[in-house]
């Protein structure tokens, strides 16, 4: 009897060892990748790198200013589109959970979350690029905004659902109309959660390449025109990483470093926000 227990205990200990090993093993590739990007890319970043466009093949130097500006502009436009639409839809879903529209709309949010980003790119190509006759920053922004929507909607919906009903009641009983109750009481009270959702969605889309492949396309020059092609950080990385030129590879490493830093900072800020206001996303 005792020997049996001994064997069983040993098995349990071995199992835990295996689990711990596998669980922590996974941090290895993460650390390796992060360190490699930092090593290859951090050295590329200087003022010249940030303020100049890529140099032609054969010339050393150059930078990623067109991609930086492009990513900034497109993320901005995408946010301007997706934040109001996403928040309104999220408010509707949290306020009217039992309607038929809420069911189908919620289903569509789930579907949208699973749609591959390249499919979004294809569709926006036919919606905007073809009619306009040119690749454009606008089409890229629209594609990105579609990808932002599910995250903004779900986080708005979940944050508002956690608020106590008494908040709404107190405001309504004072003779405050419904839209003011939502906009001046409910949304401000859920601000931290909604903001976290927005930041997460931005962190997601600044790294997205596939939807931009046939929408914003790419541009070797600095551009602010919404109706012309525009470069972006991830697209630049793709183009230059897969090119045969070392100079361009270096640019891509620098860009990867910057992109990684942006994503990291956004995620850290979100974590701090959710911890400070004890929000659940």
């Amino acid at each position: 009897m005792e020997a049996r227990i001994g064997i069983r205990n040993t098995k349990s200990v071995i199992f835990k060892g295996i689990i711990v090993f596998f669980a922590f093993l996974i941090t290895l590739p993460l650390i390796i990748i992060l360190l490699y990007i930092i090593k290859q890319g951090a050295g590329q970043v200087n003022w010249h790198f940030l303020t100049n466009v890529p140099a032609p093949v054969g010339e050393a130097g150059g930078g990623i200013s067109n991609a930086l500006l492009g990513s900034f502009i497109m993320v901005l436009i995408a946010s301007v589109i997706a934040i109001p639409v996403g928040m309104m839809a999220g408010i509707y879903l949290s306020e009217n959970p039992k309607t038929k529209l809420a069911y189908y709309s919620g289903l569509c949010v789930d579907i949208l979350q699973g749609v591959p980003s390249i499919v979004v790119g294809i569709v926006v190509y036919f919606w905007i690029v073809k009619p306009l006759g040119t690749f454009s920053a606008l089409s890229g922004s629209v594609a990105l905004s579609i990808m932002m929507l599910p995250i903004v909607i779900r986080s708005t919906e979940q944050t508002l659902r956690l608020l106590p009903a008494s908040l709404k009641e107190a405001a309504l009983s004072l003779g405050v109309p419904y839209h003011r109750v939502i906009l001046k009481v409910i949304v401000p009270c859920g601000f931290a959660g909604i903001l976290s959702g927005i930041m997460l969605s931005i962190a997601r889309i600044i790294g997205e390449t596939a939807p931009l492949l046939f929408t914003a396309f790419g541009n070797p020059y600095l551009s602010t025109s919404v109706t012309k092609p525009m470069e972006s950080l991830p697209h630049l990385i793709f183009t230059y990483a897969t090119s045969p030129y070392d100079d361009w590879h270096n640019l891509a490493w620098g860009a990867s470093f910057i992109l990684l830093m942006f994503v990291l900072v956004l995620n850290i800020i979100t974590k701090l926000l959710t911890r400070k206001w004890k929000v659940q996303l």
Partner: protein
Amino acid sequence: MFVKENPKFVENKRLKLSNSQLKWETIFRRILIAMSVLLVLIILGVLATLILESLPSIKSLGIGFLWGKVWDPVSNVYGAYPFLVGTLLTSFIALIISVPFSYAIAIYLGEYNPKGWLSDLLKNAIELIAAVPSIIYGFWGLFVLVPIVRTFEMKIGVAPYGIGVFSSSLILAVMIIPYAASLGITLIRMVPSPLKEGAYALGATRFEVIRSVIMPYTRSGLFAGVLLSLGRALGETMAVTMLIGNTSAVANTIKDAIFGPGNTMASVIANEFTEADHTQYLSALIELGLVLFFVTVIINLIGKRIITRFTNE
């Protein structure tokens, strides 16, 4: 009573305000509804566009498209089989590699060590893996992983491409670990204590409690997590495109299929979309997009349904 103004005047101001507010209330409610309807319209629009643009291809190639083995745009012959194989191979190899890791993380953070600084650290690391953009995985994979795989292939006596299905599967495996893992953590933490305590009280070891109580209880939920990881793998484009070699021919042997170059539905679209210069070509690519859309959406929805059923019980 308080303010100096004539109370009747205040009353009338208030009434006028309330009347205009009623109007805005209705407008606001309508906007909320409109935004939710917009969502449905977007999905319908995506579906409609995909179907419309792949119609030429569907009409001329029919269902045989799905098992056509040749993809040759120059001769206008299109078959999806190579890409179905590529997609399934990369996704399933990635799953097989990643699932043990996902489960280990879920069991460790859900059962052995749910709280504390080490647990938070690991949890953050997992979330970080999911946050890194796929283009960066692809870039790193191309320059670091591929040479390693090439050396490995030489050692085991296979053609040393470096790039190919195998490398893509490896990088994909790392990328999809967080999806099954996060879900698993939540589910395992949800196992009711009385269930576990009952087993411990009977003298079970930790391992036995995990094996006989926790695992059966969370089985369907963990399966849903695997489905979510699979959904993610199927739709991944950039990292795969950079590592898979972009060959549209069907491999002859299994060894070649795994260690040689290939293509997935997503990667062939990414590579050839802008080169598609005639309708047939473009339409065939869109049809691939349509298939990809259906497959990923269905897998994701099944996964989500299982989760909602599980959490509502």
